[in-house]
């Protein structure tokens, strides 16, 4: 595949300077897994940071030498000649703190105790992530990103970059995101968390020591999440009322194809994802609100931003609907930021931001081509 970044290697950055979280908790030392694609130019001006969403990680594009089937989660978007063009940009992907793909998180060993952090891992916020990402940027010698890009929860991190480090980010691409969650969105997260918290195998978050995993809870959480990531139309198209055995069995086993699909997705996810990480990520989503400390006024919150913005939403996304994206656009207009907004007609709900779609890709490509003209010479 000529448009793939090809074989990539994950790297580990170690930080020995304590990080103080928003909650007041302190992590004395931590590690972040990251990958990079493309070349950093001499002026160090062509770097793009990709922030991941709830279940993402540092493996954004390409494959591993020993695992050719493990393709990066945004490989359709990131690569040579792709919308996020690695011929022009130096692209950095990382696994956030609290994650379960190698960066320090609840399942990592706490050097102080020799046991997994479990429930003692600090509650991590979008602000904390961005602070840790800035330290990674320092390590890589990146003073200012040409762009910080993210979808969903990743979009929130991209927005936070423009508020926490206005002088360190030239462009923000917030895709299928929101300035803050609505009550309905928080409600979905709470049901997902309750599924995990009430699983008898959860053991207050310290299930590692018990040699068990709260699989049932994590599975339910993912099934619920998955429903909200798809659109009604896509589910109807893909599954309708189709029956696995072609007839009613009058029981509680899988009968409808949608049940089979959701259980499969739940099982697959629960087999590799850490339940504590899932809890942390959903809380980070709920907590994020740039106007939390400014009386709820987003106009005031975004007054700090200096970046240019591209905001993208998808018509059938009801978890992060176009209305939420407009709530990002409005304070940017109020503050006279350069901002463009595209509403992509797509059938795939929230998942659209991860899917190949010609017009969506044209929008991102057109925007980043101009960024490249300015920063990737």
């Amino acid at each position, binding site marked *: 595949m000529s448009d793939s970044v090809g074989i990539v290697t994950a790297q580990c950055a170690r930080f020995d300077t304590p990080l103080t979280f928003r909650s007041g908790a302190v992590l004395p030392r931590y590690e972040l897994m990251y990958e990079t694609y493309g070349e950093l130019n001499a002026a160090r001006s062509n770097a793009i940071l990709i922030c991941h969403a709830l279940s993402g990680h540092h493996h954004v594009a390409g494959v591993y030498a020993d695992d050719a089937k493990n393709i990066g989660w945004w490989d359709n978007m990131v690569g040579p000649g792709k919308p996020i063009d690695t011929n022009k940009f130096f692209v950095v992907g990382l696994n956030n703190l609290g994650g379960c793909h190698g960066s320090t998180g609840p399942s990592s060993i706490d050097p102080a105790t020799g046991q997994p952090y479990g429930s003692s891992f600090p509650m991590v916020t979008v602000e904390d992530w961005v602070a840790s990402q800035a330290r990674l940027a320092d390590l890589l010698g990146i003073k200012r990103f040409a762009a910080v890009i993210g979808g969903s929860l990743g979009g929130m991190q991209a927005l936070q970059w423009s508020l926490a480090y206005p002088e360190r980010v030239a462009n923000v691409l917030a895709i299928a995101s929101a300035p803050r969650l609505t009550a309905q969105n928080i409600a979905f997260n709470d049901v997902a968390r309750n599924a995990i918290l009430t699983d008898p195998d959860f053991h207050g978050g310290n299930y590692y020591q018990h040699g068990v995993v709260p699989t049932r809870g994590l599975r339910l959480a993912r099934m619920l999440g998955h429903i909200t990531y798809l659109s009604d139309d896509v589910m109807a198209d893909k599954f309708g009322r189709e029956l696995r055995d072609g007839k009613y069995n009058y029981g509680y086993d899988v009968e409808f194809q949608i049940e089979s699909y959701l259980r499969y997705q739940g099982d697959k996810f629960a087999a590799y994802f850490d339940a504590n990480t899932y809890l942390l990520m959903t809380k980070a989503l709920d907590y994020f609100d740039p106007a939390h400390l400014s009386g709820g006024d987003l106009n005031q919150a975004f007054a700090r931003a200096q970046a240019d913005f591209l905001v993208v939403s998808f018509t059938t996304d009801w978890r992060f609907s176009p209305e939420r994206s407009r709530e990002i656009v409005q304070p940017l*207009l109020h503050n006279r930021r350069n901002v*463009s*907004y595209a509403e992509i007609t797509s059938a795939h709900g929230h998942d659209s931001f991860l899917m190949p779609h010609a017009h969506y890709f044209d929008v991102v490509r057109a925007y980043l081509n101009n960024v490249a003209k300015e920063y990737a010479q």
Partner: protein
Amino acid sequence: MSNDEINRLAAERPDFAAIAAWIPKGASVLDLGCGDGSLLRYLKETRSVKGYGVEINDMDIVSCLVNGVNVIQNDLDSGLSDFEDNAFDFVILSQTLQATRHTEALVKEMLRVGHEGIVSFPNFGHWQNRLHILAGRMPVSRVLPYQWYDTPNVHLCTLHDFEAFSKRCAVNITARSVMMGEREIRFLPNLLGSTAVYRFQRGI
């Protein structure tokens, strides 16, 4: 943008220069139905405006991004609720008025979000259009290139019509520029002009 490009745009769209002539350097501008962003780019290059466009068409959104101008994807007929009162010095409706459904509501919205409004539209009173009608056919011309069955232009009007409409909407016209090609028309403008450009503000 090179001077050649600026000149090419000005030649293709004679209303651009007429609009730009009214806009002071550094003004804030909202261009409704901004198409591929040519006007905004022209105003950015020639008047250093802080500009935003509103456009519904997907292809045009991409063109605006290619042109490096801000564009907000939205349907004009659903209003300008994304924009605050008095947010812009100028709100422009260039060659779009005739294709809007809720024209009166939109003109009022223009003067809510902007201090001044500018519209340009094809003058339906132009003699060529009148000849077409006299000959019993709907007009098709360079400025009105559509057939009656595929035209987006649902609200065509003449200079006289627009001026009467302005009175009705309590809109105060402060300047008018009527063009035929690149030429400004001062004599019998409603008959000899093919494109009309108006500058207006809230009436008292």
